[in-house]
């Protein structure tokens, strides 16, 4: 019970600190722009010459895939500064003088990162609902609209949130080298998602399979083409009816596995976390702290 209380307040304080910044409004605005890009046909999800009927399932899947792809590439860089902030402000030293455990700290920071990224997912989920109202056919099927965000996008951002904390706790990965390393790790993971079903991090593999199955029945010439890109809808002129993923318990477990991975990463980060010991902090942080103190 004490741990939940601590985690709640740690995540709340960190979340409020970040969402009250102008930079957060900018990132939320950018998430909104992505939804507008989908509305205007500037971001395209196509399977060869086909796109799906504009129903809740299609918009839900489309926007959730935009969320996972965008946040996989950019989300890490948005949230990766929370441990550094505690170092530079010396709030970390106050925390170090309390009974707070290492794992409570890294998990609390992971939850805070998750909350920030989940806010952006929420914007895109709302965007999907608006798109369905403006361009969709039929009434909104809330489960088909929101389940992709819940089961595809949120586990992805949980893993990204934990990775951001992990990279901050490894001295060699806190700076520019870590940023480059993450880029290669995440692009590798996204690539594997498409080819290896058991490591489908982004959920793209699930959608390729489900939509492909429908299309293959409709058009025998269809050859597993699946593109999510910034471009024009002009090439995807044909429409096919896709009514969404039929979630089985094994599929749900497969997605929840990534939440487990996030917890494991947060735990690994706690083992590497220096707990604001000045003898172990990076030289760069010390220099920045001195600069802050002089201001």
């Amino acid at each position, binding site marked *: 019970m*004490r741990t939940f*209380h*601590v985690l*709640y*307040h*740690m995540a*709340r*304080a*960190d979340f*409020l*600190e*970040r969402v*009250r*910044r102008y930079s957060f409004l900018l990132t939320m605005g950018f998430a909104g722009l992505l939804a507008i890009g989908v509305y205007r046909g500037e971001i395209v999800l196509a399977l060869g010459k086909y796109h799906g009927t504009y129903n809740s399932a299609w918009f839900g899947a489309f926007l959730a895939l935009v969320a996972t792809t965008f946040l996989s590439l950019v989300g890490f860089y948005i949230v990766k500064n929370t441990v550094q*902030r505690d170092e*530079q*402000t*010396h*709030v970390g*030293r*106050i*925390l*170090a*003088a*309390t*009974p*707070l455990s290492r794992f409570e700290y890294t998990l609390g920071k992971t939850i805070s990162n998750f909350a920030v990224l989940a806010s952006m997912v929420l914007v895109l989920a709302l965007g999907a609902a608006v798109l369905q109202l403006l361009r969709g056919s039929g009434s909104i099927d809330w489960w088909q609209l929101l389940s992709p965000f819940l089961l595809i996008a949120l586990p992805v951002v949980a893993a990204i949130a934990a990775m951001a904390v992990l990279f901050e706790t490894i001295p060699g990965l806190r700076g520019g080298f870590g940023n480059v390393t993450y880029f290669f790790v995440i692009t590798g993971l996204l690539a594997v998602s498409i080819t290896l079903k058991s490591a489908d991090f982004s959920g793209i593999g699930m959608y390729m399979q489900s939509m492909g199955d429908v299309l293959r029945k409709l058009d025998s010439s269809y050859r597993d083409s699946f593109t999510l890109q910034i471009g024009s809808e002009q090439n995807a002129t044909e429409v096919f009816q896709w009514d969404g993923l039929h979630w089985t318990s094994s599929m749900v477990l497969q997605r929840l596995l990534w939440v487990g991975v996030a917890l494991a990463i947060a735990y690994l980060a706690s083992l590497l976390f220096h*707990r*604001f*010991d*000045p*003898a172990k902090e990076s030289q760069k942080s010390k220099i920045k*702290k001195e600069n*802050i*103190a002089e201001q």
Partner: protein
Amino acid sequence: MKLEIDHLGKTYRGGITALKDFNLELRPGVLGLLGPNGAGKSTLMNILATVTRPTQGTFKWNGVDIVQQPNDLRSVLGYLPQDFGIYPNLNAVEFLEYLAAVKGMDVSTARRRINGLLDLVNLTDARHRPLGGFSGGMRQRVGIAQALLNDPQLLIVDEPTAGLDPEERVRFRNLLSELSGERIVILSTHIVSDVEATATGIALIAKGTLVVHATPEELLRKVEARVWEWIVPSAELAAARQRYLISNTMHRSDGVHARVVSASGPPGATPLPASLEDAYLYCLAEPNAGAAA
């Protein structure tokens, strides 16, 4: 209530020794930890606040070895680090609620305590303003409020008046005096006047070692009949500094009024009552003076 520091030492990576063979025993009261910049005060504070571990020795809180069991102290510890920072977009209540939770306090106790502390540090009217808009003094008061959240038995404040204006400094000293009582307060500073008004004991530290641990009266006795006022022409001040330990100077129309700390006064000098600043400088300049305490 007792804090025992036993042969404590800290050597950083690269072989820099910040603290060596430091021994001290403390009971309730305010200890002023005085020393020049780089003397090892912050290292000692960080060790006592359980932020970093010593490389030699240990320290005990009521008989419990804190190097081995830091959580035994953390639950009764209040710590205000040097250069205390804040989350600029939180208000004082949100920030204190956060730290109260981390210190293991339940919601109702925390709220009651936060209200009382904001009142104590005179921030009730500013409680819902973002901390980013606070002055240095107001931030420092938030800092002392967070350190007191759990009504600590051991309160450690590291250079708390750095960056404060004179009025805020006086207010802070008064606050610290009010807080002493049935707790141990360690006030680390290089500003002698900060401890003059509040400390019941003084420890002088230089080059990582304890020079002297004494009461203010004992320290003052060391320089009794050793402080002089000597008027010298300004042109001769540099030469005077070579010969004597000068703790203060003031320019007047008849020359520079130098405050000299010396066993025998310069020719024509008149005796002055000693201050803690004189004693501080005397002990730092005369290593054997501390040993004689």
